[in-house]
């Protein structure tokens, strides 16, 4: 039962990364692909109707984590206190920027929110990557099941790690590059003309960066987290997950070359799915590895009682079926590229 929930939470997190990932990526490359205020409006219009729903995956994944693994939620959230609060502030700034940018057509209002949107998106991408890095590396949990990490200490992997050290920063950079690629592929798919062309170029260049960083981070992970190698040894079928990531990644370049916008974006989604499932597979059954393995939180010692997990499965399946319907409907309603001219006044805002 707990393994099922481990997988379901992982699916929700993956959905969050895939979906909010492209709008974070679009923000991170905002100024690279759009030179004028009108072009920037187009970039924001590609995510305008969907970013909020995408972000709900974070909340829903958080809520699901809360009821399925309360001890993990308590320990992880309080241990990462400051970085999470900074993430919250960035999410607040970013949501405000997207929603309020087009309210006033003024030469100081719009560039200000464009910049806020860009910076908060970029920093969120780095922070989310660093968070994943922390989970892989392990945190200083002790016998009470709690820990507390400051933002940084000496950037080394010693006894007293901070949230940011060289490894987690590397993962942060990898995440940023990967999301820039993902966002670029989204923007090229949803826009016309110059913006689309530039987005395609940015995605193509980011691809090389992702290639290097993925190799570096994967190598470092094998050294730092022995559980990963052990898991792939025990269940060799797991090798299919990194292979999916590699295939997706190669397909991004191939499809970009063929100018197939839609497939290139879907290939990028495949890359992300492959990478995330590889990580999740690699750390299982731990949900939060400790620097001292004896104190790691695992699916067994962090889970809620079985009755609640069983009940949850019923409503979760119903809920997700509904969510699938909404998402298909919404993405269909806003299918196609965004227009190159603003909507007529009075329609939308």
């Amino acid at each position, binding site marked *: 039962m707990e393994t099922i929930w481990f997988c379901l939470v992982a699916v929700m997190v993956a959905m969050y990364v895939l979906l909010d990932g492209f709008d974070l990526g679009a923000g991170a490359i905002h100024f690279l692909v759009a030179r004028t205020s009108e072009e920037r409006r187009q970039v924001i219009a590609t995510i305008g*109707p969907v970013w909020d729903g995408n972000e709900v995956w974070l909340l829903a994944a958080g809520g699901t984590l*809360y009821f399925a693994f309360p001890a993990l939620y308590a320990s*992880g959230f*309080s241990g990462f206190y400051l970085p999470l609060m900074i993430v919250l502030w960035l999410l607040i700034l970013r949501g405000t920027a997207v929603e309020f940018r087009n309210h006033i057509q003024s030469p100081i209002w719009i560039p200000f929110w464009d910049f806020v949107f860009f910076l908060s998106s970029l920093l969120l991408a780095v922070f989310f990557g660093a968070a994943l890095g922390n989970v892989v590396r392990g945190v200083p949990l002790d016998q009470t099941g*709690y820990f507390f990490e400051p933002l940084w200490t000496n950037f080394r992997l010693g006894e007293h790690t901070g949230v940011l050290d060289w490894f987690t920063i590397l993962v942060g950079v990898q995440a940023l590059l990967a999301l820039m690629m993902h966002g670029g592929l989204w923007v090229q798919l949803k826009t016309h003309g110059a913006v689309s062309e530039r987005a395609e170029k940015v995605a193509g260049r980011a691809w090389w960066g992702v290639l290097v960083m993925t190799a570096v981070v994967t190598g470092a992970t094998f050294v730092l987290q022995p559980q990963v190698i052990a898991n792939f040894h025990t269940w060799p079928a797991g090798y299919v997950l990194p292979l999916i990531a590699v295939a997706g990644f190669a397909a991004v370049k191939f499809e970009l070359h063929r100018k197939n916008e839609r497939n290139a974006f879907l290939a990028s989604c495949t890359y992300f799915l492959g990478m995330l499932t590889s990580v999740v597979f690699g750390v299982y059954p731990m949900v939060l590895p400790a620097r001292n393995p004896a104190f790691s939180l695992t699916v067994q010692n962090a889970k*809620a009682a079985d009755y609640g997990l069983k009940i949850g499965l019923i*409503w979760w399946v119903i809920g997700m079926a509904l969510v699938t319907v909404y998402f298909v409907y919404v993405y269909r*309603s806003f299918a196609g590229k965004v227009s190159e001219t603003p909507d007529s006044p009075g329609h939308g805002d």
Partner: protein
Amino acid sequence: MGSALDVHRLQFAFTVTYHYLFPQLTMGLALLLVILKTLALRTGDEHYNRAARFWAKIFGINFALGVVTGIPMEFQFGTNWAEFSKAAGGVIGQTLAMEGVFSFFLESSFLGLFLYGEKRLGRIGHWWAAFFVFLGSWMSGYLIVATDAWMQHPTGYRLNASGGIELASYWHLILNPWALWQYAHNMLGAVQTGCFVMAAVGAFYLLTKRDLPYGRTFVRLGVLVGVVAAILQLVPTGDFQGKMVAENQPATLAAMEGLFVSQEGAPLAILGQPDVEKRQLDNPLQVPRMLSLLTYQHWSAHVQGLDAFPANQWPDKIELLYYSYHVMVGLGTIFIAVMVLSVFLLWRNKLYESRWMLWILMLSVPLPYIANTAGWMTAELGRQPWLIYGLLRTIHGASPRVGAGNVWFTLLGFMGMYTVLSILWLFLVYREIERGPEPENAQHAGVTPLAAD
């Protein structure tokens, strides 16, 4: 630990109070928007669609702020209240996760369609979009109230061998009787905020002699729905809520009412200042025997005062609790008076010309916000010293490793950021009101747009 605990509490109180300024309006407006869209559909009158479009813009601004200030709430259960989350996450995580899965997805999906998709969806489709936004936000309200109700009056749980709290019955959690009354009471409060805001904007238009047809519609809809909500707020929902407190949290009732001494035929305090040290109410203005009557339907019923409970069972902020409760009840009474009077004038066809009444409606706009905030403060301060009533004390609920220095840092950060959001909010909402329901018609001579657009 003591000082860190206070900052944890202050941060949660601050962030949740601020957050709830937005949902109380959007939940209320969601209902009014469905009504406007229904009127548009049934009468075929474009006037109601324009009115709905105007309110949709205000709704959109408030909804966005509700979303961005709401995300910290879920996070803070883990970041600041780790021991509470560890103990109770298996139970209240259910309702919180359901809120994400069932409400937020529904709301966020259809809000985009509602705000941006009127042309694509057509008349009927757009009505459904409005309805789903309403449904999502009201369901969200229920799941949050059910979470709080479980903390007020835990049901459907059992304690396991190691003292942890487990879910034992899903339906007892979801259909907690406390939740049903609290939800009704809470949603009526939200509807009142929506009604007062709508009526106030309408009154503003009528008083400034602009957008008159809209002004009349807003005032009419605001007071007609508002009068129903204001009355139901008191009877039966407020009344039942009070009786549940009397039955399940008697020390809380005593503190709310400022009743220090147990007595038969207890009076109801209208005004007065509690002096907790001397255990008395200064300058009391009381209605004799009224508290006994309201609580137990008998003039001389025995009501327990605070002296019936050991001091470690008392809520720890008695003064604030007493004032919160009295402000809520006092304002609720004023709302009934304002709304009944307005509806009377509307019935006599005098409301739109009664400038004094329109002034009152316009100036009342902050009051429902204050009443809703005071109501939640009553509930949450009244639950003290418990985090989960009878199960977990607040002092045992906070995160053990997060020190006061870190919490002060984030609390100050939230205060700064929310100050900026408040300014933006006032500015943008005022701007929409100033532009009015027909921004394309440059009919408002003398009204200078705030920005060239």
